[in-house]
């Protein structure tokens, strides 16, 4: 964790309970949290809030996670923000889809929190 200033993580999640639980657990780890409930909000807040990392849920109403990731990575102002794509889907190969859309990493829901933290730390440290 960066001691100088806490890193900002944008949690993009349409399910209220998941969003709340995940953001509160991350806050307990000292991260600043920005919330987005759908793809469009994710894209606009990504630009305005400039988070250090985005946790992007794949199954979103309106603009889905893949498309939102593609737009963020296609915009030079947000392209450098690392994105971890999360999916509750297991049937289709969402990992490949997420990585193809420009996602930096992928994890499944329900999240194994410890493992997710490791991935977050690795990506934030890299940038």
């Amino acid at each position, binding site marked *: 964790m960066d001691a100088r200033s806490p890193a900002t993580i944008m949690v993009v999640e349409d399910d209220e309970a998941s969003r709340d639980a995940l953001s509160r657990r991350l806050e*307990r780890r000292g991260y600043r949290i920005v919330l987005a409930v759908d793809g469009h909000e994710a894209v606009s807040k990504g630009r305005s809030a400039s988070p250090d990392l985005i946790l992007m849920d794949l199954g979103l109403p309106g603009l889905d996670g893949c498309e939102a990731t593609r737009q963020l990575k296609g915009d030079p102002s947000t392209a450098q923000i690392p994105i971890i794509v999360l999916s509750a889907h297991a049937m289709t190969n969402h990992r490949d889809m997420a990585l193809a859309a420009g996602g930096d990493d992928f994890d499944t829901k329900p999240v194994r929190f410890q493992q997710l933290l490791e991935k977050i730390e690795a990506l934030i440290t890299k940038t």
Partner: protein
Amino acid sequence: MPQAVPTRSRVTELFEQYQSDLHQRTDRLFAGLLGFQWIAGILFALWISPLAWSGTVSRTHVHVWAAVLLGGIINLFPAALGLLRPGRPSTRFAIGVAQMLMGALLIHLTGGRLETHFHVFGSLAFLAFYRDWRVLIPATIVVALDHMLRGLFWPQSVYGVFVASQWRWLEHAAWVVFEDVFLLMSCVRGLAEMRQTAERTAALEQEVRTRQQAENDERALASLTSAIGLALTRGTELSTMLQQCTEALVKHLDGGLARIWTLNDTERMLELQASAGTHTQLDGPQAKVPIGVLSVGMIALERTPQLSHAEQIDPHLDDALWARREGMVAFAGYPLLVDSKLVGVMTIFSRREFSLSVQDTMAAVADGVAVGIERKRAEAELKRRARDLEEAHEIQRTHAQQLSALVDQLRVTQRHAEAATRAKSDFLASMSHELRTPLNAIILYSELLQEEAADHGQPGSITDLEKIQSAGKHLLELINDILDLSKIEAGKMSLSIETFDIRAMLDELLDTAAPLVQKNNNRLNVHCEDTLGTMDSDLTKTRQILLNLLSNAGKFTRDGVIALDVRDTMIAGRPCVEFAVTDSGVGMTEAQTEKIFEPFTQADVTTTRKYGGTGLGLALVSRFCQLMGGSVAVQSAPGEGSRFVVRLPITGHDSAVDAGAPAKVA
């Protein structure tokens, strides 16, 4: 039946006919001669002594009257006999006697002239025309008596002298007898010749008759052969064909009764098929005759023709009485054989004996009829087979239609099944998403609350929260396993092949697995061969297989030892890695091990309650092994622990190992 030699009776008949003709002819000849003699006698009398003179007075000489009256008496009676009753022996004898008496009269009328005596010799020679020497006897006796008596009492009348030796008649008689001897020989010879002629004529007649008979027979046999040929080749039913054959036999062979039996399918019974002649009905005591019974059955049994020729039919013949009453004189029975196979029997009773050519023809007819029966049967068989074949084709067509319908139905079913599978997959995909999302929240909240409880010093609620977390994780495990299985069954499970170091994989795996194995106070022994290198396979699934096995071993073993042995091996010429997980746990019965790789099957229904687990672990292990071209096997005994051996090919996944398990499990 015509005979080669003429009958005795016919010769005698002819001979007697000739004799009779000769006698009659000669009788008529003599009738004329006698008349002429009478006239001649009168003329002689008129010429030699017309008048008897007494002085100048003359009167008709007594000789003239004698010639007229005596000559009339002597000649006219036998002449009348010759004309009215010719041919009778009495006529001949009368003529013979009359001829001799006429000779005596002439001799007397000519005054005993020696020349007139030649009339006697001439008459005897004429009498020999009869070729009947008996005629000569009374004639000779009359001559001898005449000469003797007149020689004694009136020699002038007979010898032309007044005195003669009383034995002179003997000399005359001797000359007559002398001639008789020659005439007798002539008669005998003439008769012999006549008999020979009769014999020759009879023989000739006989030959002509025989030839005519033979020609008639030939014509009859030719007609028979053509009638039989026609019957056999006409496209009629078997019974009609055989009936026509029997009718032809009766018609052309002067047969009284012709019958044909055929051997039935059991080959033990002859069945009357056709009957013509005196009996035409097909029922009755001989309608069915077993082989070896009655003469018909015997012919069938012995397979040799039977011929009975005689005035009386073989008394052993069953129909002997009937045959005699009907005037049958010949019987012929033929076995009907085709290539020495018996098909029936043919019999013929006839009122005429069978000639050799008739016998030959009947034998040929029997052969023809046999072939005809066999052909009809073959045709019937062919027809039956054709019908069967047609039925079979019909059935086949029906089956093909049914099959086609079934295939169509199956296609529809398959489409439905595919649609259902897709629907199931889609359902599972969305369900898993819908299940995972709240589960995500549950697990995150339970962990969050644990952290907060720890911060706030509330250890009491931590235990409960851990239970919620544990239940959530179990639920997640269950969802994941179900999802994996349904993916495999939908054929959607794919392998993600990568090259990895086996030891590194095991080290990482044991970090996760060790706590699971050791939780029941078990000891874990790991033994890896030094030769282990890398393998090209699906790392995640390989780990999941081993994790499931180790986790199971830990679950079912308490205070025991669990061993993981890893080594290189060769299966069916392919390099493989063998992972063996051995535990000293509860073990399983044979019945349990048989079902252990089926989904939702644990060794015991109470197992889940007692040991936990989803019941899907081993099913997934088995499916994954097959998918990766490997295999899994189990050895176990109750109370003695279990040993699971997994073998996975080091490279590739497309080819099966061990029992040829499919690379993909649908």
